[in-house]
């Protein structure tokens, strides 16, 4: 459980987050949605302790985020960036091996190798495990870095726009992996997602941010409706449901 209490964050004079309070439940897929500049990525990097809030506190499982030593935090919480380096002579399997760094400080042991193999199998990367990351496509690179995060083996997983620039197949692959991580392994995944339909179909819990404030937060089934989405994005929606999916149409209304 992550408790966020009256968090404020400014970049220079410009406030990005204005007095945000939230609690994020454990063992769920949680989506952060909202228009550009809403403060979603900032909130995520505060939870990952990559930046310090101006005011307010964040607690992780009842303990203040700042009380965790870096080495403990890196075994409890992992973070996937939006942009990756790729001009390095690193093989896909080596990238995934970096995920074990918090556990073995770069000296891989038996358990590390096993976790790396599990991550490769889970992301179906065995065909390109020996390819260098500058030789593979952007989508494959995203899968490789997600596999690194999986190998890191943490309770909490933060993903900053994991679907950015991906084609439909890769996007579905990643979201299904996220669901598996939560369902089969009991992880908590918090992801910034721009595609409202992925958020609506794959997440249990949804947080809508706009202009640095929380517009709504709660279970997806209760949050995804025409009125809420219009409030959040400022455009009209028509929501269509069938047995398996919900579709938020905003293309031509």
């Amino acid at each position, binding site marked *: 459980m992550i408790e966020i209490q009256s968090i404020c964050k400014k970049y220079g004079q410009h406030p990005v987050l204005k007095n945000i309070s939230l609690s994020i439940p454990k063992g769920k897929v949680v989506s952060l949605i909202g228009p550009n500049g809403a403060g979603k990525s900032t909130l995520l990097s505060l939870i990952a302790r990559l930046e310090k809030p101006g005011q307010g506190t964040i607690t992780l499982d009842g303990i203040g985020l700042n009380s965790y030593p870096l080495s403990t935090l890196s075994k409890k919480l992992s973070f996937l960036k939006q942009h990756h*380096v790729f001009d390095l*002579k690193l093989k896909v399997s080596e990238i995934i091996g970096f995920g074990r760094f918090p556990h073995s400080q770069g000296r891989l042991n038996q358990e590390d190798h096993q976790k790396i193999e599990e991550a490769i199998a889970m992301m179906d990367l065995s065909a390109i495990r020996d390819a260098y990351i500058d030789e593979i496509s952007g989508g494959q690179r995203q899968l490789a870095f997600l596999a690194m995060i999986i190998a890191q083996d943490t309770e909490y997983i933060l993903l900053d726009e994991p679907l950015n620039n991906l084609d439909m197949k890769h996007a579905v692959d990643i979201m299904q992996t996220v669901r598996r991580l939560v369902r089969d392994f009991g992880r908590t995944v918090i992801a910034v997602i721009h595609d409202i339909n992925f958020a609506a179909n794959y997440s249990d819990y949804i947080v809508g941010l706009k202009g640095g404030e929380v517009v709504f937060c709660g279970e997806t089934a209760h949050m995804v409706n025409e009125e809420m989405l219009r409030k959040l994005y400022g455009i009209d929606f028509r929501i269509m449901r069938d047995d398996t999916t919900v579709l938020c149409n905003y293309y031509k209304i």
Partner: protein
Amino acid sequence: MSRQAVIINLAALLMMVLFVFFRADISDVFIMTGRLERLFTLVLVSLTLAYSTIVFQTISANRILTPSLMGYEHLFVLSQVLMLMALGSGSELVRSKVWSFVFSTAIMTAYSFALYVLLFRNHKKNVYYILLIGLVLGMFFSATTQFLQMAIDPNEYGYVQSAMFSSLGRTSIDTLAIALLVVAALLLYVKRYFRYLDVLSLGREYALGLGVDYDDLVRKQLLAISVLVSVSTALVGPITFVGIFVSGITYRLSATASHARIIGLAAGIALILMTGAQFAIEHILNYRHSLSVLINLLGGSYFFVLMIKQLRK
């Protein structure tokens, strides 16, 4: 060890042997100690050059910048001139090699931190912008040095001049001993961080996410780079421009991102270039050219060959 690393190591070893024993009369103590002294200097400079260039590129997250391009060596010379002007050539502090070295290193460390805070911490900054700033700063330092020279007593001018050109002529046993001590202590100190350097190249967010205290590590590495560049500049003058060729060749030849291996390979390549150039100066060119000119010629041509090869692929 990869095939490339074996070849580079063998070539470096061969060059070292050739450098010492080529047409040498082993019984002539004067010639042999002179050669060994120069070889030892070149080995030290290769090591400092390889470490400082490669780690600097990892921290600044690109493969074009080198300490030399960011004006480090010009700053070293400037700091020597400033110290001379402030204290006079008669001062014990100026004459003491240790203290003038400490003074320059302190200034360069402060400069490193300023560069890091203003330019590198935010990786979104354009590399051409940083390069331009570095070139302008370098020009500023060297122009200031030249301006100050006009105000220097002609007798003291010679002291400054020797700091401005690279040569192996001014090393002596005691400077070498100090340099060796500093480099050995520093390499011992940074050795334990080798594993973390690889994580550093993934960037700040991933390094922190993987439990590496990025900011602290970067500060330590910048300190190490400043000391190493000071050592090599104090030993042979401004020479680390060759770093850009050394790193370029290294990245093209190596098939790994492991810093321990890359730095080793880079040191080998630097050593081959330097002993090769110094060998040519001593035996073919009859001491007519400066070391840095020849190294840049050698390194530059090989770098071009590699680039053309890669373009053809």
